[in-house]
């Protein structure tokens, strides 16, 4: 079953049932990532947004249904081939003790390498460019251990960029960062989308961030997609209350003129 919207999308899923062992998270899910979009998935805790991202990145195999990447079922590609088309920044990664910044970023070249092609000039150039794009070129000689949380997150993002994939999937890239570094990370993502032409899919916690940066918003609740589209038209007080169970007012963000969510002061109402 292919709808006209799918034809224009490199990454989409149909009739997806997503489950961990016996625990079903989502059923009959249909999702389309519009090409050249900055798609953001939001929803309450445990609504299945990370699970959906894992399915889209082939990290989780759907119990039913298929994810299609560039016209083929994603599971039918060799693992390295997927990694040349789609990059994933998971929620948590482990930096081996004492590994250098450049060494870690260089690992992003794995899908392009082989036994006889371990470190070409192109690898070198791409790694340099990825570090440049994420603003960590000055840190290349440092150990990842020594870096701050914000710098570290940039290193991981640079590693994913070094994969040179048109599609980038990011699972909560701003978690554990303070507000300045959160905005910094999101600005960087927006730059990758607008200036470098990547299609981005990110799971975000903060609705206001999502409204500011997303060109396409997917709102999830209890494993189902309840709304999607341009944040300016999708985000309403009714929707937020329905999804999060929180009464809110929507005002105009004075900086970006996108919807801004302000929770209703329930204490004042009770007085």
């Amino acid at each position, binding site marked *: 079953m292919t709808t006209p919207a799918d034809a224009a999308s490199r990454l989409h899923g149909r009739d997806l049932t997503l489950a*961990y*062992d016996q625990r079903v998270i989502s059923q009959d899910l249909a999702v389309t990532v519009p090409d050249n979009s900055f798609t953001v998935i939001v929803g309450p805790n445990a609504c299945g947004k990370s699970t959906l991202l*894992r399915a889209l*990145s*082939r*990290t989780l195999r759907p119990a039913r249904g298929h994810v299609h990447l560039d016209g083929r079922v994603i599971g039918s590609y060799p*693992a*390295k*081939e*997927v*990694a*040349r088309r789609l*990059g*994933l*920044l*998971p*929620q*948590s*990664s*482990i930096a*081996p*003790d*004492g*590994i*250098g910044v*450049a*060494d870690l*970023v*260089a*690992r*992003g070249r*794995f*899908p392009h390498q082989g036994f*006889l*092609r*371990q*470190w*070409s*000039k192109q*690898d*070198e150039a791409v*790694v*340099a460019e990825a*570090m*440049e794009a994420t*603003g*960590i*070129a*000055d*840190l*290349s*000689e440092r150990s990842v251990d020594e870096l701050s949380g*914000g*710098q570290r997150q940039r290193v991981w993002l640079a590693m*994913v960029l070094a*994969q040179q994939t048109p599609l980038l999937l990011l699972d909560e890239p701003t978690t554990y960062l303070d507000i*300045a570094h959160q*905005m*910094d990370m999101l*600005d960087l993502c927006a730059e990758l989308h607008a200036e470098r032409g990547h299609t981005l899919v990110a799971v975000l916690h903060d609705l206001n961030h999502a409204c500011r940066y997303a060109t396409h918003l997917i709102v999830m609740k209890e494993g189902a997609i309840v709304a999607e589209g341009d944040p300016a038209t999708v985000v309403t007080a009714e929707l937020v209350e329905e999804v999060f169970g929180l009464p809110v007012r929507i005002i105009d963000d004075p900086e970006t003129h996108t919807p801004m969510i302000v929770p209703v002061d329930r204490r004042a109402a009770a007085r």
Partner: protein
Amino acid sequence: MSDTLAPPRRPGTSGGRTTPRGSFALRLFGERLSLLVRPRTLVVCLALTLLSALVLVVSVSVGDYAIPLRAVPGAIAGYGERLDVFFVQGVRLPRALTAIGVGAALGIAGAVFQSLSRNALGSPDIIGFTSGAATGAVTVILVFGAGRVAVSLGAIAGGLLTAAVVYLLAMKNGVQGYRLVLVGIGVSAMLGSVRDYLLTRAELTDAMGAQIWMIGSLNGRGWGEVAAVWVCLALLGPVLLAQGKRLRFMELGEDTARGLGVSTQATQLTVLAVASALTGAAIAVAGPIGFIALAAPQLARRLTRTGGTTLVGSALMGAALLVVADLVAQRALAPVQLPAGVVTAVIGGSYLIWLLYTEWRGGRA
């Protein structure tokens, strides 16, 4: 958002070097071949190989019947005095070669187990494999009173069975390191009490034999053992080496590795099966020699400073450790012959403690 809050971004500066630290690229045939060479790793591996070779020659030469060093090469080739040739070819050379092979097998298998469990304690000693093999062997010795080949088979069966049980119990959405270690400790304790029970029911001489087997020794190992362990290494070693890079990627976390294009489950199953088989072969040949699988990978990664698992380094380190330990075991209290397993813990343990001590004192915290 104030601009001053953002970390400095200087487009256009490209002072950074991108080739991984301590490495250089070797490119031939106009980019068709590009290899990443790490001099430090090469030097460490070469040094360990030379050390093993040197100790091999020394352990062939010394003994109650001493053979001058200059006569050793001839005797190895089969020339010289008949007694020299007999001791070298018939006794000492196969013993040393067995030590090197067993050490290499334990070292590389230990590196795989530690990498998979992301835990320095994740060696076959800790996760129950060794205990399972020992229980299998002791059962064969005490219940069936069988000979050496049957004991070896019993050890392999016991080890593989235990590894499978531990793996299944610890598995939930893939293998979690600490679960593997915890389940392994539990299963080892249970198997230990089974062995103790069997020993209390056994005749004294049988119990003595079982006890000696459980320490691990290279006494009296001949060409049959050399063939067994080296054939296993030649067949299974390359399989592990081919997966070495994927193994290092899995240390970044399973999702990260998958995102980079590593089929994590296939890799996990392959290396686990192969490393278990190598451990089984090593234990079947020499008994459960302790500590090599635990210490060799840790020593190797600290010496090579790769910030990750080094399979070749671990194998060479294991080989060097065991051949040195066996030389010490033969000569330390001569003419009394110690089992090599007694010495490995002393040598490997003190070396590891010294390395950790200097590392922590060096303030790499």
